[in-house]
């Protein structure tokens, strides 16, 4: 049975989506490409760097704006569609544009985990506090995990045969 794990965050891309979980001893990354799930584990013992940064999603903003403009132009070319455009399309596009502007204003927060040979990234749309909480949690867990062992801990002892 799989270890109990907590969902930390996710990232959606054109090529697929990524879910990042935290288990007792590792950060697990499930990269879903189509219908195959590829799982990578970054052991907390092997975490080298954690980073937190914010970036406005300009790519998404311009893509949505271009698509909306194209649809409006194509549909609006025909006079018969003017009513449909005014009553339905324009309000929907206005809402979408407003959401897009808000995403740019608030930005997307990314938390990145660097292991020895792998990397995991989580995106938080308009959830800066959640991103900060996840970052602090990971820093705390990695620090605890990588703390030097106590001097009194003994190594493996040979088994005695009676």
């Amino acid at each position, binding site marked *: *049975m*799989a*270890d109990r794990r907590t969902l930390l965050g996710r*990232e959606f*891309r054109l090529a697929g989506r*990524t879910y990042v979980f935290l288990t007792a001893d*590792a950060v697990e*990354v*499930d*990269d*879903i490409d189509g*219908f*195959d*799930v*590829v*799982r*990578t*584990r970054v052991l907390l*013992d*092997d*975490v*080298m*760097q*954690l*980073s*937190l*940064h914010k*970036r406005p999603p300009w790519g998404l903003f311009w893509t949505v704006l271009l698509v909306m403009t194209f649809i409006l132009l194509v549909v609006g070319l025909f006079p018969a569609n003017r009513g449909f455009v005014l009553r339905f399309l324009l309000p929907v596009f206005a809402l979408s544009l407003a959401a897009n502007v808000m995403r740019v204003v608030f930005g997307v927060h*990314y938390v*990145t985990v*660097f*292991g*020895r*040979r*792998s*990397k*995991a*990234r989580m995106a938080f749309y308009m959830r800066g506090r959640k991103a900060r909480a996840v*970052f602090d949690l990971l*820093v705390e867990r*990695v*620090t605890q995990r*990588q703390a*030097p062992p106590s001097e009194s801990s003994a*190594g*493996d*002892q*040979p*088994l*005695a*045969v009676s």
Partner: protein
Amino acid sequence: METLTSPRRAAYAGPTCPQCGTRYREPLPDRGRVLCSCEQRYEVALFHPRPMTSAPAQAVAPGSAPCARHAHNAAVASCEHCGAFMCSLCRIDVEGAGVCAACFERLSASGTLASARVGFRNYNGIAWMLAVVGLVPFFGVLLGPLAVLAALKGRQQERKLGESMGRRRALVALVLGTLEFFGAAVTWFALVSGAMS
């Protein structure tokens, strides 16, 4: 996103900008804020994990049991799966248990070890996709049963491997697939009956 299947996964070489990937060559404090040349400002926490070393095996001494694979090494534990004695070189700690190399290979090949699993098929996601596409009129007679089969396969995977990804979607796909099949079957039957009469 780098995965185990990606070729040439370069080792971590030092503080790296998470946006552009540029390695920051100047020494950084373990905690702080950095401004990269790509104009990206980020907060960084650096760690210095202990280098990976294995404990040296102890030589077998009178009164101590030898390792099953290395007769000159003293056994420090017995495999929790097969019971064989193993030295510190053979011992693999996984999921809170110490197992020998042979058992680790066998368990990871069979998919029993969750921590060693590197990939699996998302049957619940397949069931969901089939159920959604099956909403298209007349497609449900074929896609509905397939969605049900995929959802059952996902349920079987959950019992066997403990992977519960997309469980709710699979349940919805199960119900939807069943309804689609009967709905499409009734529609086809009605059309055929109407055409014949």
